[in-house]
């Protein structure tokens, strides 16, 4: 459980820091790197970084957009199309970031397994 929490925290910190310098795929790097150093087990390999980046992206999107009354988010939620609901757009944003990070983490885990053998 402890490693889960450590991995979660490290992934978020990495993702936030890397996002200042790298494009969107910084969250994939974050998931990948934390998987190298804080190895998790089974489903947690995917879900912990998934959840970490999900939270990061969803909360970040919410903070930015709510300050502007979700003006653009409402329109993008029509464009994509998500029924014009900005909260669904925030959810989708979290899912996309989480998925990218989680998948990269699974790959990292496999790489670690190989090196250790």
């Amino acid at each position, binding site marked *: 459980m402890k490693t889960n929490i450590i991995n979660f925290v490290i992934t978020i910190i990495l993702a936030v820091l890397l*996002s*200042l310098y790298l*494009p*969107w*795929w*910084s*969250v*994939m790097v974050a998931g*990948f790197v934390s998987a190298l150093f804080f190895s998790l087990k089974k489903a947690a390999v995917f879900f912990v970084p998934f959840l970490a980046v999900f939270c990061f*992206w969803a909360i*970040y*999107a919410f903070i*930015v*957009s709510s*300050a*502007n*009354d*979700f*003006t*653009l*988010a409402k*329109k*993008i939620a*029509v*464009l*994509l*199309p998500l029924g014009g609901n900005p909260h669904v*757009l925030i959810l*989708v*944003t979290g899912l*996309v*970031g989480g*998925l*990218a990070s989680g*998948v*990269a983490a*699974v*790959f990292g*885990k*496999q*790489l670690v*397994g*190989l090196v250790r*053998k």
Partner: protein
Amino acid sequence: MKYLKLVITFVVTIVIFYVFNTKLGSIPPIGKFLDPAGGVWQNDQEETIDGNVNIQGLSAPVTIHYDEQLIPHIFAQNDLDLYKAQGYITAKHRLWQMEFQTHAAAGRVSELIGSAGLNYDRSERRRGMGFGAEKALEKMRENPEAIKFLEAYRDGVNSYIISLDAKTFPVEYKLLDYEPEAWTTKKTTLLLMYMTKMLAGGDNDLEYTNMLRKFGKERFDLLFPDFFDVNDPIIPKETDWSFIDVEITKTPEGELPLDTIPQTIEKPNPDNGSNNWAVSRAKSTTGNPILANDPHLGLNLPSIWFVMQLSTPEYNTMGATLPGALGVISGFNNHIAWGETNATRDVLDWYKIEFKDTTRTQYKYDNQWRNTSVRIEEIKVKGAATVIDSVIYTHHGPVTYDHNFMSDNEKSGYAMKWVGHIGGNNQGAFLALNKSKNYDDYVNALKGYTAPAQNFVFASTEGDIAIWIQGLFPNKWKGQGKFLLDGSNPEHDWQSYIPQAFNAHTKNPERGFVSSANQHPVDKNYPFYVFNDGYETYRNRVINDFFNSKDKFSIDDFKALHNNNYNLKAAELLPFMFDSMDDSLMTSEEKEIYTQIKAWDFNNDIEKLGPSIWSKWYSKLYHLTWDEFDTEEEALMSPYAYQTIYLMKTKPENEFMDIVETPEKETAQDLFLLSFKDTVKELMEWKAKNGDYNWQAYKGTHVGHLLQGLPAFSRFDLPIGGDRNIVNAASATHGPSWRMIVEMSSPPKAFGIYPGGQSGNPGSAYYDNFIDDWAIGKYHELNFLHDAKATDQIIGTQTLTPSK
């Protein structure tokens, strides 16, 4: 096993990266797009409108005050700083639009949207849009000051572009996944070409030629006379033209080539037009001249207009600017006000070209062979190979139609002669107007202006009102350029131009007002050849009747006239139709709708049913009348509304009224009933699907985003009345794109509004905040500041400072 897992997870990671990083169909690169740190979320905020920004090359600080409508008021120390700041500020709010419109002008849409844009791009290239822009730039180079201004604007735009990164690009770049490129002086000329095409890029010569051959001269002239039987021209009929000492070009002997032309390139929207008018001191309730302008263009977001105040110690001007061009286009200063409507003259002709052989290196001219030149057009296509289109040029202009494009003869083609290819400093006229102080300045400002020809209305605090129809007009022989011309015959070339001083104009006419609404500029007494090439015949009469109806007019009268919904076209035809309708032949449903339209007062107001019934009925009737023109074999066009109605009323038994498909011989009266029954059927279907067919719902006015009308960034179902051919010219997608009223008090008092908002960012509250007020006919007073001191209307001040 381990290796297999590694490979699989690696592949999945790469796939996810690829899918989230790539634009797939219309779905943006979703990871990049939704990234809150760099994607579209970063656009969900307002622009900064305070603080300091360092700009290279400024000579002194520039102050920009924003009022609560987000209108920037720019105070600079000299012209170069002013235009640099205009470029910077316009880009700050409208960058994507500026670039998109110039890409569209240059035929570079495929670069952004892929092969769906290819046909469009090819026709723009074959129209010679890039060629014309280069010619314009060449002409402007003759004037070092003009080029310096263009460069200052360019540098201002580029200072803004350089300040951006992937995170701060406007939304549309993120959506289509591309980046802004540097602004150039050519882009400004491309924007001017975009306007020239929109307003002076129309013609029907090839359609007229097909019809002349098909119907013969007599029937053709009945359908498309040079003058209609009513004419309320821009320049009053009683004008004395005796000062004109240049004669009309003599008509040469010889035949016109009567070819069959299968199809033609897309034409600009025939509804592109406008209203403007001004009343004199004597006709104004306050004793100050009052002027109004409302250009009718496609309704788009971001709007084609951007309102600004531009000021230096020498002058102070405010009004609507065109993002991409310098200065104020329709506006006022402390001394004068001006506005434009389109002059709709035939300044685009077609010449039949006969090549010597299939190499097309030479063409026949004056019984000799002349060399052609080739312009290679390279069209980049997103996601596909670059397309090369070689366009042959003659001394007339580009051979638009040849065996590579809409035609099949390898040894002939049609070349375009267009005033848009001649070039000219058409930016300069507006900059000079911005600084003009009186009538003489205004006349001087207009002198070099060539295209698109406009009716420039004018009013001054000194009390003058005027209108000049200004552009470069060929002095044509009677009939020249109404049809396809012979490109080998030197006498078919444009022989000379009407000397600028003889362009039709009027100053302080006796009637106390000037007006224009895209109608015929003159009556038959004007010595040069002008024929009806799509002149509007309704709005002008309503406007002139209004100004003849009483002695004095106020700003409120002007507002009422902008919003006047009187449908003169319906009023001229419906009573005649009612007379011949036999309601005993109607079902009860038809009778009900017939009663509704009979009760209509001919005003296209939003809550009424009459306008919807009329709109459907007239459109059905029109198509039924001109069924002869509904063919794919050759390019034809059906007659204009005025002549259509004139023929129905005066020649109801003419054979054009007959429906070709039926064995019976129909008259206009038969068509009325047939089209009415059809109308009722379709209206009932519409009602079952959409509910009540009141005019607002039925017309469905909307303002669509420039990028293929993306619904998410558009506004729908606006509560505005009117229609085409009505002074309040708001149809479904087209209408008054800027409404301005200026009273020439000292200082002037001005009102303006447009269907959009100052910000081009869909994430801004200022993106579409004018639309609701515009629709209901409200105006915003323009805060014309006297000096750089902020008033209580100012919500933010930004300073542009020279960077070391």
